[in-house]
């Protein structure tokens, strides 16, 4: 599983980072990003990443299975 943030949708709510900081980091303006979008999400973090995606108010997080 891979994941990325759609920067056209992200409005810097920060919920993803609150739920899964290992995968979703925030920049100085609060916009979320994934350090390496081409890297596989470690299996033990997959569930938390999916939860973060569900929680995002703007549906900015994309999960690529």
């Amino acid at each position: 599983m891979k994941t990325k943030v759609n920067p056209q949708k992200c409005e810097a709510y920060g919920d993803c980072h609150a739920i899964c900081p290992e995968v979703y980091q925030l920049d100085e303006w609060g916009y979320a990003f994934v350090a390496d979008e081409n890297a596989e999400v470690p299996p033990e973090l997959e569930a938390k990443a999916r939860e973060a995606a569900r929680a995002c108010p703007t549906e900015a997080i994309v999960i690529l299975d």
Partner: protein
Amino acid sequence: MASVWLMGQVRAFEDQEAYRARGGFQALQYALSVSPETVVKLVQSSGLRGRGGAGFPTGRKWQGVRANPGPRTVIVNGEEGEPGSQKDTWLMRNRPHLVLEGALIAAWAMEADNLYFYLSVEDWVARQRLEAAVRTWQGSPEFWPLAVELVAVPHTYVAGEETAAVAAVEGELARPRFKPPRPFEAGVRGQPTLVQNVETLAHLPYILREGPEAFRQVGTASSPGTLLVTLRGAVQRPGVYEVAMGTPLGVVIEKAGGGLHPGRQWRGVLTGGYFGGFVGPDPDIRLDFEGMQAAGGSLGNGELTVLDDRTCPLELAGAVTRFFAVESCGQCGVCQRLTKTLAELVADLAVGRGGEEVVQRLARYGEGMRLRGACALPDGAVAAVRTLLKVFPDAVASHLVQGRCEACVES
């Protein structure tokens, strides 16, 4: 300069008769006589790489499009968004039949149902000549039922980005879309779509007529063929020139550009239009995708802005970063913030405001803020900042302390 085929003897508008007299449309006739797969194979073995900016191998892109079931679409990208770039418009205005033949070869190879010429409304000369060329083809023996349309949009920087082109063809605003999907998977109306730069397409007739080996005889192993260079800035003869890939930068500036003005000193080049960042005054830098990258710049669209000792790098970097801040289409929060911040920081540095912290912040953004937008626009601003600090440390130091440098004083 080395052998040339995009410009050749052509200096002004070439009509269909003149183009046919030079062997025009033989490549298309050949393509129509063989299978699309054969055409793809030939282009693949030519090693042709995209001239729209990224240098992506054209044959591989074609395979990607063809791997998805039809109907398929081809977009000829003639939007040419880099400020000052003139190569695509030169081809469309002066050699519309060459551009058309290349586009038709691509449409045949993709087994496409629709072909769109995509350009800016301001370029009405190119538009009229392409339309006339299409009409002559529609009455020629090489015609087959392919729907051809012209789509013209108001000129912006992002309009030339591939997903913006797809959006414009669909009748929406020419603004980039989030990927995936990329156009080769799902572009115009969900169809697999080939978005190809005008110059890339203009190489195809030569490749099919003379063969991939002939194409590879010019240029370098990994960047074969020639490229069109738009030379600007502190050279005696700015303009569009065709040079072999791999030609040393110093040779291009001297032989094509006529060198610098007497008494001036060369201090660097802004590469790839506004997008590729600065490189220092090294005449041995090879003008191909690898050579430019190794030097810290990017070949991009082949546009080179030459700086001499009267060009203030801070002034140029200021223009570049302001340009990106203005041209950011505003869909991505991070792009808006980042491009605006970079423009402000460079402006502060230029007048010596904000102290060392400004340089530190610029360095941090320059290294750490890559690939954050839905399109690559912010990366152009980041590259300008990163290379400004690296290539022109003296000018940066001088502006930091005095708010000016020697170039500012002299000009």
